């Protein structure tokens, strides 16, 4: 029960915080100060909060995760302030990279083009800045969607078990027996070349691992005493899954998600590189590396003449993915129950 509950005889109020272990009794005779302190202290002892504070402390102290978070934050700022950093030339289509002329020879960094221009004179600076938005869109859309699908399928499979579980897990088996990249490549071929189709294909191939992760953590939690207690108290199936099981089962999937944002952006970039992505001139890192392919080796005597064409977009991909991987890797170590309290 939640809220104030008046017990008139004892002149006491019993306040039950949602989810706390016990109740806090507060006498009515002017001990307002004490009441506040005690509630806060009781709240701090909430196990989920305590674990969160412990984890948060570890995240802040771990150099790897701090590096990862800072990288992500920098990219986030670039994405948010893209219109300020590099104002779009075409108001209606900000993702179209402006280009002057059609000369295929790249031009080195200079005034007006801080990172130079790639083949067909597309401005590299504009491309990498707006490409950050594309990368975030791919990462969040793909991983967000597969997380939701994975949670839904995994919860149904893990909680109900039986024939439903058997069928769903065989489907997962089938999907997981195909390499993500190659299956995604085939699906994009079938759907037609475009960035949206790359995202769709990654969603189609990406969800099974989440379903399996959620399912296996649900299977262990389902047998815990507190679930039996919740059942005995008469909670409905839906409420048990949503309030008692998922909050405890979701961590492995969240860690996977933070690693997957990097991995999915990387896979999408690779597919773009192969020529399955957006039309030419779209602000997308993978495509920019692909445009640079013919200008890797400079003419005799100047081997690094065109270094900027391939290096700059590549470094953006690398640091973006590195940020998410560093964060995910640190989270995995922090939440690994085998290593957690050592």
């Amino acid at each position: 029960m939640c809220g104030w509950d008046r017990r008139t005889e004892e002149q006491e109020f019993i306040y039950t915080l949602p989810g706390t272990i016990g109740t806090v009794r507060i006498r009515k005779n002017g001990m307002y100060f004490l009441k506040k302190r005690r509630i806060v202290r009781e709240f701090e002892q909430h196990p989920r909060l305590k674990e969160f504070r412990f984890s948060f402390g570890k995240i802040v102290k771990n150099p790897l995760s701090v590096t990862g978070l800072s990288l992500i934050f920098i990219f986030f700022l670039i994405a948010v302030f893209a219109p300020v950093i590099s104002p779009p030339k075409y108001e209606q289509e900000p993702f179209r990279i402006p280009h002057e002329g059609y000369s295929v020879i790249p031009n080195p960094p200079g005034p007006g083009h801080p990172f130079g221009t790639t083949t067909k004179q597309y401005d590299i600076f504009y491309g990498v800045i707006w490409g950050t938005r594309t990368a975030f869109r791919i990462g969040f859309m793909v991983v967000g969607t597969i997380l939701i699908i994975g949670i839904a399928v995994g919860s149904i499979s893990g909680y109900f078990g039986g024939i439903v579980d058997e069928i769903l897990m065989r489907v997962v088996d089938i999907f997981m027996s195909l390499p993500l990249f190659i299956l995604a490549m085939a699906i994009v071929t079938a759907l037609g070349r475009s960035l949206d189709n790359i995202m769709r294909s990654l969603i189609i191939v990406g969800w099974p691992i989440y379903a399996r992760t959620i399912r296996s953590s649900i299977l262990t939690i389902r047998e815990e005493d507190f679930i039996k207690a919740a059942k005995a108290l008469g909670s409905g199936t839906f409420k048990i899954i949503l309030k008692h099981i998922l909050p405890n089962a979701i961590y492995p999937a969240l860690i996977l998600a933070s690693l997957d944002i990097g991995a999915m952006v990387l896979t999408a970039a690779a597919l773009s590189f192969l020529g399955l992505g957006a039309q030419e001139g779209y602000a997308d890192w993978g495509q920019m590396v692909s445009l640079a392919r013919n200008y890797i080796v400079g003419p005799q005597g100047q081997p690094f003449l065109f270094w900027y064409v391939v290096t700059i977009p590549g470094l953006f991909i690398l640091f973006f993915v590195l940020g998410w991987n560093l964060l995910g890797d640190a989270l995995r170590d922090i939440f690994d129950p085998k290593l957690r309290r050592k």
Partner: protein
Amino acid sequence: MNFLNYIIRRILLLVVVLIGVTLIIFAILTLFSPEQRASAFIKDIKQLSDINSIIKTYGLDRPVYVQYYNWIRQVLSGNFGWSTTVSRTVMEAFKFFLPNTVELALYSAPLIILVGIWLGTISAVHRDKPVDHFTRFLAIVGWSLPTFWFGLVLLMVFYGYFRGLFPPEILGYKAQAYVNSADFVRYTRMNTIDSLLNGKLWIFVDAVRHLVLPVITLTVIQIALVMRIMRSSMLEVMGKGYVLTARAKGASPKVVIKKHARRNALIPVVTVSGWLFAQLMAGVVITETIFNRKGLGWWWAHAATQLDIPAVLMAVLFNGVLFVVTNLVVDILYAYIDPRVRLG
């Protein structure tokens, strides 16, 4: 008896998964128009001019289950259709490209596994020391590297700066001409092995020079997985009682790490090696495209951009079969090593 039961159960499951894989491939196939689908049934270039009769013969305008039945019969009889990218049947092209890819995998896979195990052990033994942080950081950077970009940068340095030290493609101009001539017997169609069997050292050197960069690219990117698993499994094993017992009995730390801990820590690495193979094939698609090595990955990548449906579907099927079979082998080996698996 139990062991036999286990294997039979695994093989039955394998059949279910393989049927599922064909269903996925067929689902992708149905996204195309009948005219495009027809190419999946062509055996001969002459049939290209007669698409309509193929649509009739294989019932491509009939209900889905009829089509699936016709298609799976074709696949089982070894007819995968016509690949327009290379103007051959898919089966011929597959036989032609396979050796180059196998050669690449042959040199990368052991390197990935051995170096990964080594780095993982070092990292676990020196947990939270600078060595650990450094190797882990390197592994994460490797994992985050875009394969296609890393390969291009390697080319920029080792092909551009050091004029032609490690060139792209499979063989140099002269070596290629010699290999294609009648004097050279193709035993395996893998250049490094064939050249040694023919006693031509200069071709061997040339082939190795062309292999160095692709192998490095594949290794750097895949190694993180092995290292990561080795490290965590090693950490877990080193906390076990028998490791402490071994130390208490007076065994030196080196012996304990090598004989007691590492052997047991290897089991999870064996488990993921099947998965590693699948990852390797995905890496091969990109690597071969960058270095212009004409292998399976090169063919599939070009097929994908040119709407060469039969070749792309072949890629999915081949990888599905490869994954399922390697996993079966791993599982059987695993059950053989670890009695808990077959009895549990």
